């Protein structure tokens, strides 16, 4: 498997990371080297093997539907790039 610069740009867009033409080329080289390593997996017959998502076979706990956290909005928003009236500000989405 080998990625083209166009594919690299498409993946970068999906990941919301801006890449220039020259970055796409360098990245393509690195990613193809890594995928060569990853390809070793394809030689293995895993028919009937249950995928392992997690190290421990446990299910998610449930807790009572009760408030457990204090209101710390001011402290949490103090680290945001831009807020106003308790809201996070971003560029206008709807014209």
């Amino acid at each position, binding site marked *: 498997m080998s*990625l083209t610069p166009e594919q*690299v740009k498409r*993946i*970068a*867009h*999906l*990941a*919301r*990371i*801006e*890449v220039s033409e020259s970055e796409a080329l360098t*990245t393509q080289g*690195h*990613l193809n*080297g*890594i*995928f*060569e*390593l*990853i*390809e*070793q*997996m*394809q030689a*293995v017959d*895993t028919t009937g*093997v*249950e*995928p*392992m*998502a*997690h*190290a*421990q076979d*446990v299910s*998610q*706990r449930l*807790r009572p539907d009760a408030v457990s956290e204090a209101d*710390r909005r001011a*402290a*949490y928003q*103090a*680290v*945001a*790039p*831009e807020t106003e009236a308790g809201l*996070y500000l*971003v*560029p*206008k*989405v709807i014209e």
Partner: protein
Amino acid sequence: MIDKTLKQLSQALAAKEVSSVELSTLFLDRIERLNPDINAFVTVDREKTLAMAAAADARIAAGTAGPLTGIPIAQKDIFCAEGWRTTCGSKMLADFVAPYDATVIEKMHRDAGLVSLGKTNMDEFAMGSSNETSFFGPVKNPWDRTRVPGGSSGGSAAAIAARLAPAATGTDTGGSIRQPAALCNLTGLKPTYGVVSRYGMIAYASSLDQGGPMGATAEDCALLLNTMAGFDARDSTSLERPAEDYTRSLEQPLAGLRIGLPKEFFAAGCDAGVMAAVQEAINEYRRLGATIVDVSLPNSHLSVPAYYVIAPAEASSNLSRFDGVRYGYRAPDYGNLDDMYMKTRAQGFGEEVKRRILIGTYVLSHGYYDAYYLQAQRIRRLIANDFVDAFKSCDVILGPTSPTTAFKLGEKSADPVQMYLSDIYTIAVNLAGLPGMALPCGFAGGLPVGLQLIGNYFDEARLLNVAHRYQQATDWHQRRPQGIE
């Protein structure tokens, strides 16, 4: 005082031979003097440290101190600590002051009364094996300052090796505690997945990440793990188990212990000097009464490929939170919302982090999910099953931690794949979720070699015992680099 173990420091504090303020000042002064060159710490706050030390002294005076109250340690900069800058080695969080404490921070400092000397440098978002991906620059290995300390917990390792701190925390997703411990002549433990809370520990690959202790000795690691481990309702994968005293079996004799040597760890691919030191350690274990048995981990060669699908997949999801909206870096100039995301992430993340996000995005994307992500998860099962089989005939597994000693700064940074192979012996342990340790077992070419011990699930106390008895019989762990006086 700087060479004392945690137990010795604990005794000195209890006997009022030294106060926590004096001890903390001693290490802060060393950091001030030696850190500009070694770059192990990214944040030091003398005032905060001394306030914690004064509080610890008050606890000691009041008779309410725990065994480690007043001992200063370093925190890997991946743990959120309220009021402390918490960067995770990234430009993305270069100015982020955490508004809350990680559970590990809460337990170690508020509950156990340990004092924080500051936050240690690390590979950006814990992605790296050399500490060279840090936004704050590489860390130098105190054993040879032209070499890397390993990574991603490289700052913690260098801090202890240079005795800028008696001990530290680390986190280990694919070897990030064990490999730097090996490269810096330290002892480090990655616990069973789920033993140490991940709450407030900035996520890289959530199904693999695990915090743990790093120190000079196995006993120090046991004492630290006592303060770090325990169920936490705020971590959805924290395990509900009774509390353990990890020091309980340190002194147990090793007679009858069955040590398994996986033949795959003793095949080609490991430096001769590293292998010679590991073989000598095996001889030492024979003298200590252990029985050596051959075992096999036939799928272990697939652990690096499977890891570089699973970890980036989880990382691409975890790191989607860094979008310039709620915290962290935001690009100064942008057009619409999408442009703000794209520029923020392009400028805020370093090259290795971007690479892993792109790999993860690709393997999770439509049409590739089955071939890569599901296949990797199936191979993960095969790797975990290999350990289950191996532990039928042995109690612990032994091998090298890393195939080489510390490599030169810049030696592997241009070739990601070469860097990834630095973790060939450690990654399988994370995929299986098992506990693993690194400990000093000799030198090759003047550089430390680390032995790796792997235990069955929840066998931390046994691993610590096996390491401790070895450290009673050898003095590798007491060797110190030159030039740190």
